[in-house]
């Protein structure tokens, strides 16, 4: 069960057996053909082969994020041209009013969108690889349902909408749930299938409890909780951003370290172990990093849905990679989707999570349609 079968375009017809391939400069004897266009970077004794398409996709995505960012920074009740935005960002001597609007008011929210989008996307990529399932996401381990339940308890039973209280409620709820799922699924090792089933069960249980709570309070209160539950980036400032960014950087290192063992594990445990991968340790690390990334976002902005699910799939299709676990393209795709969604969310005054699913879902549908139609390659 993996997306690989779906994502790989049909193989071109193989050369007839015994045919001698032309000796082009790209196909010299003794040279390994990776099957994809690559660039090789050499410096001293170190060489690095990078996938040409992946690099181009990443560059384009970066440009998209930057462009969307400039547009977002320039629009609102006071609208600014892109030139004004750029000068306000880069030139300390620019119009102080423009600097106030762009840097102090709008920039934190934009940066939050970038960090949260990237964090969710990486978390999703880790979990889809971990569970070998395109539907795998951090929700599998119950973090989202746990944090929604925790935040609902704080908002509806304790009756406070204080930012810190709700954030800690969601974190505690999410962490306890993830721990519970892990412990219940662990029996002399962690099997993906058992993890999925336990995650479904615990998630559904908590979802029911949350619904019970939502049905028992006034519509206004329930709506407040539901708005938080959709995930929103409004009201976030530089204070929250600094802590979030530091934690994100640390987790990014963790994610980068666990990528290689996880890619090997996608080939099956036996093959991976034969290659020297410590299967259980790699899975535990990936789970912890993935959950921590989700927790980071949830604490700041609430459970923003769908990016974890869609961004790795989008990145995989853009880079035509054989695995969803390419964290840089995935992170950039996640950031692009969230920045774009937040731009729309600010215009129509809805929580960003509501827009995320529409934008991300529509884009994913379009990508799938193009891929299925086979026009790509």
């Amino acid at each position, binding site marked *: *069960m993996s*997306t690989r*079968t*779906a994502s790989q375009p*049909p193989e071109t017809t193989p050369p007839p057996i015994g045919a001698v391939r032309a000796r082009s400069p790209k196909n010299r004897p003794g040279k390994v053909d990776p099957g994809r266009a690559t660039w090789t970077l050499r410096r001293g004794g170190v060489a690095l082969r990078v996938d040409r398409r992946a690099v181009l996709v990443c560059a384009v995505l970066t440009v998209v994020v930057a462009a969307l960012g400039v547009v977002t920074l320039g629009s609102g009740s006071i609208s600014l041209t892109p030139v004004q935005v750029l000068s306000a960002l880069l030139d300390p001597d620019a119009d102080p009013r423009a600097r106030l609007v762009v840097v102090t008011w709008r920039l934190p929210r934009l940066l939050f969108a970038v960090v949260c989008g990237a964090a969710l996307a990486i978390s999703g990529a880790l979990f889809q690889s971990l569970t*070998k399932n*395109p*539907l*795998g996401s951090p929700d599998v381990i119950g973090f989202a349902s746990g944090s929604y339940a925790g935040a609902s308890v704080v908002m509806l039973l304790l009756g406070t909408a204080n930012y810190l209280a709700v954030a800690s409620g969601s974190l505690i709820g999410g962490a306890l749930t993830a721990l519970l799922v892990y412990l219940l699924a662990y*029996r*002399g*090792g962690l*099997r993906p*299938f058992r993890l999925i*089933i*336990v995650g*479904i*069960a*615990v998630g*559904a*249980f908590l979802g*029911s*409890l949350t*619904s*019970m709570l*939502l*049905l028992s309070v006034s*519509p*206004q209160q*329930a*709506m407040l909780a*539901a*708005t938080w539950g*959709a995930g929103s980036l409004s009201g976030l400032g530089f204070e929250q951003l600094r802590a979030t960014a530091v934690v994100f950087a640390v987790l990014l290192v963790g994610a980068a370290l666990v990528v290689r063992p996880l890619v090997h594990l996608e080939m*099956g*445990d*036996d093959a991976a172990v034969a290659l*020297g991968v*410590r*299967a259980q340790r790699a899975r535990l690390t990936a789970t912890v990093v993935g959950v921590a990334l989700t927790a980071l976002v949830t604490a700041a902005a609430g459970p923003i849905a769908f990016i974890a699910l*869609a961004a790795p*799939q989008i990145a995989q299709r853009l880079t035509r990679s054989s695995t969803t676990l390419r964290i840089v393209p995935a992170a950039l795709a996640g950031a692009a989707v969230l920045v774009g969604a937040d731009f729309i969310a600010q215009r*129509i005054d*809805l*929580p960003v999570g*509501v*827009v*995320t*699913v*529409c934008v*991300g*879902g*529509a884009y*994913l*549908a379009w990508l*799938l*349609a193009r*891929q*299925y139609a*086979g026009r790509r390659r």
Partner: protein
Amino acid sequence: MTTAPPTGDLTAGAERAEPGPRDDAGPARRHRHRLLILLTATALLLVVAVLSVMIGARAIAPGTVWDALFHFDDSDEHVMVRELRVPRTVIGLVTGAALGLSGALIQAFTRNPLADPGILGVNAGASLAVTFAVAVLGYTAAGQFIWFALGGAFGLTVLVYALGSIGADRGTPVKLTLAGVAFTAVCGGFTSAMALKSTTTFDVMRFWGVGSIGGRSLDILPVALPLIGAGLLLGLLSAGSLNALALGDDIARSLGTRLAVTRVAVILAVTLLAGTAVAIAGPISFVGLMVPHIVRWFVGPDQRWILPVTVIVAPAFLLVADIIGRVVLPSGELRVGLVTALVGAPVLVALVRRRKVSTL
């Protein structure tokens, strides 16, 4: 270097499916074992159905139930049995069977343990249409939602199938799953956008969004029964082809399975079953997801057994959840859509820990 644990737990991704309920048993004994399970499940369903008529805010004795059905007089208890309890039980039986079979079919078809009938967009389509009816057209009574739900469920499934069947290999499970994910998300986004813009809409939707089989009238049955009946027939007839599909598309084709026909049949059956169920009762999660897993662990991987046994077990589970929902609160009742997960989740966790579980 890693030392392999002695239990062979490292075969995680490729856990071996259990060949049958008892490896050592001969075919005849295995057959008897499964037959026993089928009979037990049927007996259980009958008992639960009777209990469902008897138990509630006011307990009614079995004798009175009998009289109400066959020697009706106008006493309060007889009216209660005829007007409330029996319709509720019948609705529970119909939706339970539909939800269970649609779940079993979609899991067997996609070979994905996370797949539930909602994956093809049935629930999302129904929710979107009902929210539209409330927010834009101003309907508020649950009885008026049925046609919107039905239309939305079918409409979105058609879209999902249309996207999933673009290209050469039409409608493979992975393509359909991803298409379903994408469209479900878009619909879910529009649904919450409409709901979060108005308190009235939100209030109606938070109740409709948790399924219930109480307070439904049997007037829906003349429409619902043919749809669900067709779905049941189509689904049960696909069992053999699904067995072949479990071996992979290539082997299935070489065994003589017509892949395209099977796919269309299964998707049509799932849509008919789950779409009608959501129209009758609102979204009830977890039944379609959980019951097929549990049934498979008991009867083995043969779909010709999984599908019928699920049709029996799922309504029994739904009715048990409904009965618990009626009596658990000191006053009032819990909607069955909440209770299914509260009751079922612990059972599922206990089973998945205890049994040598098989993947799909």
